[in-house]
């Protein structure tokens, strides 16, 4: 293929993504230096670093960064560990395996908004929710999950949605394991833990990398689940960076501060990107 043709083919995607990134970004930078509140129409005077100051000294800022990271790492750990366990469990053929697969993968297709509402109303509601009814049945008091363990509840919902994804990727990877090697190891008397440590986990290396990478992309900007359940609260306990910016932009109509926050989000995304390239890059290269 000629160099020029290759360039031409690459151009539409490059241009589109570049425009998609650079124009909003430029506007965000511009807005971030203005005193720009939708509730006060008219002039938008230059504000210097005032918006940044507001955003970084907001009481919710530190919790939001913490929550974003806690959410990211917890969901990753849960989905990878439980996902591997489930995949190992389902790896051997058994009656109805196809149906089990179908049931397992279903949560991945559930819309985040529906996911959140379903858990909030039908599972975690302190009076009518099934969790409350179950704990009542066993003689314990009902727990108001979303106000007593808010971040944990959000993590649970999101992990439920991403577990099928992780599990299925691990399952697919396990299907390609070298059976003979496994049998040989068993003959040599390797116990299950040893098999796990020396055969299964190394074999799953690349798929673990894939799972972490994709989840990182989506988990950094979790929004719908928080918006529809806790609204970031109680206090700032479930406010993540995405939700904090949303609050600034749409709840207080402060475009300036929200833009400063948006730039911080871009920065955070890039730090995460560098981090994941370091972590995963080796694994993904053949």
């Amino acid at each position: 293929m000629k160099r020029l043709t290759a360039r031409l083919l690459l151009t539409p995607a490059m241009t589109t993504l570049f425009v998609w990134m650079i124009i909003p970004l430029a506007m965000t930078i511009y807005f971030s230096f203005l005193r720009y509140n939708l509730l006060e129409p008219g002039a938008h005077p230059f504000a210097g670093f005032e918006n940044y100051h507001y955003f970084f000294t907001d009481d919710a800022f530190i919790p939001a960064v913490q929550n974003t990271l806690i959410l990211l790492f917890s969901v990753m750990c849960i989905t990878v560990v439980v996902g591997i366990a489930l995949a190992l469990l389902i790896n051997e053929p058994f009656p109805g395996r196809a149906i089990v697969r179908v049931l397992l993968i279903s949560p991945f297709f559930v819309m985040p908004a529906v996911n959140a509402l379903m858990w909030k109303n039908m599972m975690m509601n302190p009076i009518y929710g099934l969790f409350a009814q179950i704990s009542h049945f066993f003689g314990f008091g009902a727990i108001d999950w979303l106000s007593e363990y808010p971040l944990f509840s959000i993590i649970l919902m999101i992990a439920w949605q991403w577990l099928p994804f992780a599990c299925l990727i691990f399952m697919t990877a396990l299907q390609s394991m070298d059976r003979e090697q496994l049998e040989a190891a068993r003959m040599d008397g390797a116990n299950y833990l040893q098999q796990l440590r020396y055969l299964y986990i190394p074999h799953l290396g690349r798929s673990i990398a894939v799972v972490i990478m994709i989840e990182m992309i989506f988990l950094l900007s979790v929004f719908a689940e928080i918006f529809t359940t806790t609204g970031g609260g109680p206090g700032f306990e479930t406010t993540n960076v995405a939700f904090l910016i949303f609050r600034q932009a749409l709840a207080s109509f402060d475009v300036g501060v929200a833009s400063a926050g948006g730039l911080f989000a871009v920065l955070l995304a890039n730090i995460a990107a560098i981090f994941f390239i370091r972590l995963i890059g080796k694994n993904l290269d053949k």
Partner: protein
Amino acid sequence: MAMQTMTKAKAHIAAPAVTHTNAYKVALVGRSMLAWLLALLLFFPIFWLGLTAFKTELQAIAVPAKLFFSPTLENFAEVQARSNYLLYAMNSIITSVGSTLLGLLIAAPAAYSMAFSPTKRSKDILVWMLSTKMLPAVGVLVPIYVLYQKFGLLDTRWGLTIIFTLSNLPIMVWMLYSYFKEIPREILEAARMDGASIFKEFRYVVLPLGLGGLASTALLCLVLSWNESFWSLNLGAANAGTLASLIASYSSPEGLFWSKLSAASLMAIAPIIVFGWFCQKQLVQGLTFGAVK
């Protein structure tokens, strides 16, 4: 005959099930029961949502929860009557199919170019593309809103289609790139030697061999667009709202309408779940970026 014995011997190594002891069989039964139990447990919330959709409002909030009841279709009728489900469903279909096609049109040539004519920069470009996907949408909501207002794209199907395409594009390029890379270069080179033009090369070599990749990329993109809620909530309203916006209109905190909410939710997720069931194999292969072979 010799052939048969050989296959037999091989089969014996490959499938040691023949020599399994009773203990192994018991363990297998235990494992499969556990697998079934866990699968049902994970699926349960969806099942419960489906069940609630057929209850009356009173049955929906009954304590203790009702497993058996006489089902009603009232909720579905009411969802359609109250908020024109079909319009939202149509919007979802149009925007997700539209953004998938548009995305493939832009992503496929780029992935093709990077896979078959790589430069030192190709890897960096890929990573850069992916990093745009990590940016939380709220970070650029205000500028996009302002631009959409200016160009009259607010609350239009076109507007949503474009934004869905843009947000899926990095993943599409990356997936297609990994698929195209799997195509043996020798085949391409042979075609080139025979003097095939780039379009013929694409049409007769890359397209047939990469069809699986194109299909799973399209599937994932469909699912992601269908489930996208942030942009459809903020940029689409009365005319272009997708099913995600429909759900939001039922989630108002005042007054619980569980069975109606469930009916609306079920109507919103059922098409894509059923679709996902049929395409799961393709989808899983695609999601792994060819990383697990």
